[in-house]
């Protein structure tokens, strides 16, 4: 047989099992690098593939152990047994418990946590409630509150293709300048979401996860908070991010020109030029 050099990426994928509220979840996780754990949380209706450019960046992985897991019901993480008995709805409580259970089972010590969109919301909750545990939080396209602007029922009904409508909805949140290949890769993840899962995630993002009444309680001297949002994000707009930052004393907010709601996957090189200085600051 002819010998071929296989060019593997640095990313390793595997599964672990966690238990939350007496329910077992089989979680798919990818990681690369060594050093300070950098736990990455994907957006609503997508999965950890969004972070492949961060996982594969050796400038980052030489100092950070980058970890991205798929939430249950997303990507390669199965829904739990008996999922068919009720519609999926992500609550604030379940979301936080899954993250903390993952961290405990994965034996992460003082991780940095970086989440995008709904992940950017939950990290604010964690900055307040787990300030002694997390070294810093980075909210990508993060805000403490949003006003819904469309009817979520369109996302989950039998006469509309779920994958296509999810992709078409979020295509509005990608900047026109973002490279086509990454735009369509980002949209592909949305086309692959399970029925009703994006809608169920938005229950947290648009309703249950509101945090504007508590964001002012975050102590950034214990847990630094960074907010990074894209100019073209029409969901978590720059105004909403800046309003959130204004409520968190000591939070550092930056608006990235020419990028949208999925900075790490829609325009990875541009995003990296903004995330490197933040990671450098955390390292110091």
């Amino acid at each position, binding site marked *: 047989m002819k010998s071929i050099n296989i060019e593997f990426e640095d990313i390793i994928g595997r599964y672990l099992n966690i238990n939350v509220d007496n329910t077992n979840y089989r979680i798919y996780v990818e990681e690369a690098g060594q050093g300070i754990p950098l736990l990455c949380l994907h957006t609503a209706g997508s999965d950890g593939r969004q972070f492949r450019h961060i996982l594969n960046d050796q400038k980052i992985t030489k100092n950070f152990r980058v970890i991205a897991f798929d939430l249950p019901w997303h990507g390669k993480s199965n829904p739990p047994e008996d999922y068919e008995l009720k519609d999926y709805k992500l609550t604030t409580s379940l979301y936080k418990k899954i993250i903390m259970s993952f961290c405990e089972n994965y034996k992460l010590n003082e991780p940095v946590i970086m989440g995008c969109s709904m992940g950017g919301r939950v990290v604010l909750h964690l900055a307040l409630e787990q300030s002694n545990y997390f070294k810093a939080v980075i909210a990508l396209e993060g805000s403490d509150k949003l006003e819904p602007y469309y009817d979520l029922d369109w996302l989950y009904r039998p006469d509309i293709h779920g994958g*296509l409508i999810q992709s078409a909805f979020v295509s509005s949140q990608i900047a026109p300048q973002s490279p086509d290949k990454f735009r369509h890769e980002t949209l592909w993840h949305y086309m692959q979401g399970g029925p009703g899962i994006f809608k169920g995630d938005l229950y947290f993002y648009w309703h249950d996860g509101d945090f504007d009444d508590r964001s002012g309680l975050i102590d950034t001297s214990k847990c630094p908070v960074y907010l990074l949002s894209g100019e073209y994000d029409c969901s978590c707009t720059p105004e909403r991010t800046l309003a959130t930052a204004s409520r968190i004393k000591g939070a550092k907010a930056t608006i990235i020109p020419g990028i949208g709601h999925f900075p790490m996957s829609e325009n990875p090189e541009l995003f990296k030029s903004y995330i490197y200085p933040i990671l450098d600051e955390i390292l110091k």
Partner: protein
Amino acid sequence: MQSIETWIVKINSNKRLIEKGRWVNLTFTFGIGQNDYLLEIIEGKVISTTKRTILTRSGTFKIHGEKIVWEKHWLNIPPRDYHDIFAMLAKKLIIIDGDLTPFMQNLQYFKDLIASNRQSIK
């Protein structure tokens, strides 16, 4: 801003767009300021464009925006809030009304059809 006729030629010469809209058979109203146009679509192709003069002819749904709004949407690189009809909807820059089911069933097709009037899109 290019003429409606030029836009329709662009739509009908875009094979991929027609392919994506092959299940679309309806007439919808596209409004630019004071002017409404009825676009009749058969299997993704625009087969007629009529200036709306009879108000009882409304089409299945209507998408309306001011002329300046569409001009910004149709720039090669539209500014934020004008880059996509859902972003424009969120900012209340356009109005969408009527039976939205076929619109939602073919959302990316309609987004691409409208955006195809951008000068950079062939």
